[in-house]
């Protein structure tokens, strides 16, 4: 018997569904049930990962597969593009399940039964795996979307004694169903579409539709998937509330993986469902419109994030912002590809690589940031940045992994956000005059990455360094256990790899698009000239156009330079033979009692927050600066 990739996928899905029935039986024994949940997730994750690796390394065009359940036919297709997302889901869900074993022991959660949680967790993951592997927008899509949505609804409302949390969860459910209706309606509008019509047939149907209908379909699809991905103004409606209500590992999954299914949907729509006749008509402008939404999303989302004092709300808004980068890149790539200009088309390659690169990077570092916040919440019982601080000494390992996540999201040279944002911004800028307004979008994106930096510094500073006198005075705050540290450390390690070796990832993503059948860009990516234009060495990646290296990102070279220069600085610091002494900051004698006199998260960047009041997402200030 030959074991196909679809056998692997279905075995994984069945394992997860079985877990949903079996693990709740052990809910009374929390650690055992958590471990069992992890074991199932691990088994399914390994299967998914094997499928993903088989597809990504094989490079052979994947055959579609139709699953017949009674009268229903559900088409599945795992191509390279699906495989990237499937691998991401496998990785993050397994590590998060491991983290949950420890996290659900939290004091605050003791009086909540785990049965619902354990039932929903595997279904949620199965739903996400379904979304990225089914090949229709009707039957299979509905089943997967509903599994994902309903299960995540129960996970978000886990802490259901708090009314605000159930309200957020209800709102989430409502909006996700609205998104579902929009997508289903879009698919139903397409001529010749029925239950279980595969995507390529839908694309052909769109080709024969008239302009108005097609525009409506694209609009509905972008609305539906845009809702999921957190596009402005849709993301603001649900994302911050849902993310801050859910238990932290669930937030990590929501932000790390679930919203990426929206990216998946939008890329599939724009690059697989724009048939030849539409490319010269209204679909020509889809990319520019999406890029416009992307740039607004990234700017507004990030500025709103800067204003938050709740650690998880801050991260949630920042997820909106980061997804804005991805939307900008998708739009840029689409517009460039259809422009017919060879220069812009080679830049579209870079932009699309940026899409996948930033998506995978964000999955890891944002997941890690939510898990670190979870650990902080576990140890201190709060996620309020105004109250936290000074945890670096008390929770050194959490502080270290959070630092890695922070430098990654901030795009500090050599860490993961650096290379992926480089791909997105550089591709926009290098188009020059022919790229038009995209260049201005690039400027805004670059400015926003400085704001991202500011909010990261605030997030890290307010939790791990700065004041926090109360904690060190009160005592009782301890580093979390190994069960929670281990998955965080693993994610941190992967984050570093993502940052240091862009060559590997860029080559992988080129292969993904080159081998995924039926997309607008397959020929472009399969072109040897494209592959030759992206040169990579030990140090990083360079883009060569017209024989000249025009842009390059060399994380390891920069890291080496910084290290050498840092060693010189360290030598210089010791060269004078100065004496060292430790002395606490002079706080007028009130070393542990100055909490009323501390500079908290509400005060930081106050002038800038006031200046940006018009972007919304304002938080009432506790006191005046």
């Amino acid at each position, binding site marked *: 018997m030959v074991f196909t990739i679809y056998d692997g996928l279905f075995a994984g899905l069945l394992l997860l569904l079985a877990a949903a029935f079996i693990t709740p039986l052990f809910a009374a024994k929390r650690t055992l049930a958590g471990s069992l949940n992890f074991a199932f997730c691990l088994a399914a994750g390994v299967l998914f990962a094997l499928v993903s690796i088989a597809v990504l390394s094989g490079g052979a065009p994947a055959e579609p597969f139709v699953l017949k359940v009674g009268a229903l036919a559900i088409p599945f297709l795992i191509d390279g593009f699906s495989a990237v997302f499937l691998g991401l889901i496998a990785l993050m869900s397994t590590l998060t399940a491991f983290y949950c074993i420890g996290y659900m022991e939290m004091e605050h959660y003791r009086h909540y039964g785990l049965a619902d949680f354990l039932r929903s967790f595997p279904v949620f993951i199965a739903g996400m795996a379904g979304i990225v592997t089914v090949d229709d927008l009707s039957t299979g899509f509905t089943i997967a979307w509903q599994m994902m949505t309903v299960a995540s609804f129960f996970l978000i409302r886990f802490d259901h004694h708090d009314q605000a949390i159930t309200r957020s969860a209800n709102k989430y459910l409502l909006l996700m169903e609205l998104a579902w209706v929009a997508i289903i309606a879009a698919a139903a509008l397409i001529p010749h579409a029925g239950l279980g019509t595969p995507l390529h047939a839908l694309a052909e149907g769109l080709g024969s539709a008239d302009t108005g209908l097609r525009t409506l379909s694209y609009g509905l699809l972008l609305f539906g998937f845009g809702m999921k991905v957190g596009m402005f103004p849709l993301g603001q409606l649900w994302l911050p509330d849902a993310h801050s209500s859910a238990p932290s590992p669930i937030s990590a999954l929501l932000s790390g993986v679930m919203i990426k299914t929206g990216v998946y949907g939008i890329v599939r729509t724009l690059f697989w469902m724009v048939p030849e006749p539409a490319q010269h008509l209204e679909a020509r402008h889809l990319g520019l419109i999406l890029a416009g939404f992307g740039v607004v999303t990234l700017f507004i989302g990030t500025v709103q994030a800067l204003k938050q004092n709740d650690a998880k709300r801050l991260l949630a808004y920042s997820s909106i912002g980061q997804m804005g980068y991805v939307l900008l890149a998708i739009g840029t790539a689409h517009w460039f590809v259809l422009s017919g200009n060879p220069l812009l088309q080679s830049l579209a390659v870079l932009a699309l690589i940026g899409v996948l690169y930033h998506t995978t990077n964000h999955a890891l570092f944002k997941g890690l940031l939510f898990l670190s916040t979870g650990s902080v919440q576990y140890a201190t019982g709060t996620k309020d940045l105004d109250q936290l601080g000074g945890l670096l000494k008390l929770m050194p390992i959490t502080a270290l992994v959070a630092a890695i996540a922070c430098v990654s999201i901030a795009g500090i040279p050599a860490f993961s956000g650096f290379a992926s944002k480089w791909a997105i911004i550089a591709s926009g800028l290098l188009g020059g005059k022919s790229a038009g307004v995209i260049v201005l979008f690039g400027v805004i994106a670059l400015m926003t990455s400085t704001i991202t930096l500011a909010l990261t510094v605030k997030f890290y500073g307010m939790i791990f360094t700065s004041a926090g006198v109360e904690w060190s005075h009160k005592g009782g705050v301890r580093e979390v256990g190994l069960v929670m540290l281990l998955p965080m450390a693993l994610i941190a390690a992967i984050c570093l790899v993502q940052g240091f070796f862009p060559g590997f990832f860029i080559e992988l993503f080129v292969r993904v698009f080159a081998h995924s059948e039926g997309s607008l860009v397959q020929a472009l990516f399969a072109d040897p000239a494209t592959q030759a234009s992206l040169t990579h060495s030990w140090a990083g990646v360079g883009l060569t156009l017209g024989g000249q290296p025009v842009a390059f990102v060399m994380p390891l070279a920069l890291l080496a330079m910084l290290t050498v*220069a840092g060693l010189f600085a360290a030598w210089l610091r010791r060269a004078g033979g100065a004496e060292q002494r430790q002395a606490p900051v002079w706080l007028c004698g009130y070393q542990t009692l100055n909490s009323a006199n501390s500079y908290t998260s509400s005060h930081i960047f106050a002038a800038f927050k006031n200046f940006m009041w018009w972007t919304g997402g304002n938080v009432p200030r506790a006191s005046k600066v």
Partner: protein
Amino acid sequence: MNPTTEYAWLLVGTNLLLFLIVAPLFEGIVRRVAARVQSRQGPPLWQPLYDVLKLLGKENIDATGILPFRLAPLVALASILCVVAILPVAGRATALTPYADTLSVICLLTLGGVAVLVGAFSGKNIFALIGASREMTTMIMVEPILFMILLLGVLKTGSLDLTTVLYGTPAGHYGWAGLVMIVVALFALQAFVGRQPFDIAEAEQEILGGPFIEYSGPNYALFKYYMMIKQMFYAYLLIAVFVPVLHSGLLGVDLIAQMLLTAVVFLLIGLLAATHPRFRIDQALNYFAGLFVLALGAVAGALFG
């Protein structure tokens, strides 16, 4: 190693030495100019270097006992030294220029700012936090302006390679967008170098040096050195972008010409600093927003004009 790579490595060394030695001298010029404006004699031109040397031998007080506090000065100085090593001075790429494009250099410059912030955030001193908050706010507004100044070169040459961006376009080819950008650059100059009226983050008379308040001895010396080199970098950048290289064929001649021009920029910095009172941060934000819009207009003009 063939002679050209040897030459390129020699340029790395030249750059580093040049900035390490001349940056304090330029700082000295600013102090002397300020003194003359205020009818004082002023310190010797090398006084900033003497200050750094003296600080290196003073007691190093660690006010927090955590790693970020000790790491911050190292990262700050290291990042600006990397920028200098990468910078193609007088139109000639160094051995390290091919490893960083314009975006990387901007990120490295930001890293220096971040190091200052991290140092400030690691203590419990409120003045440090206020200063850090202002520093970051300034950085958010000023960084894109710097970037847009370089962007004109990117648009003209279609490349992000630093040598091409800085020297690839003759100054005349920028048109009116270039003129607007020179104005923007001059108006943003004091903010780039953190001088009055934009020394809001340190504001000695108000928040006692802001982010650096808890630093002493060698740690503070590293920060001081970092700031002097950063200041020289920005002053030099204006010359590199807007004034064509002499192209005399001799590195020494080109370099001296550029350094003399940079010294003129420093005279300007000193004069402006001595004659302008400090802005409040909210006033500064409005000012930067105006410059930002102006610069964006110039970029749009270059794009669609």
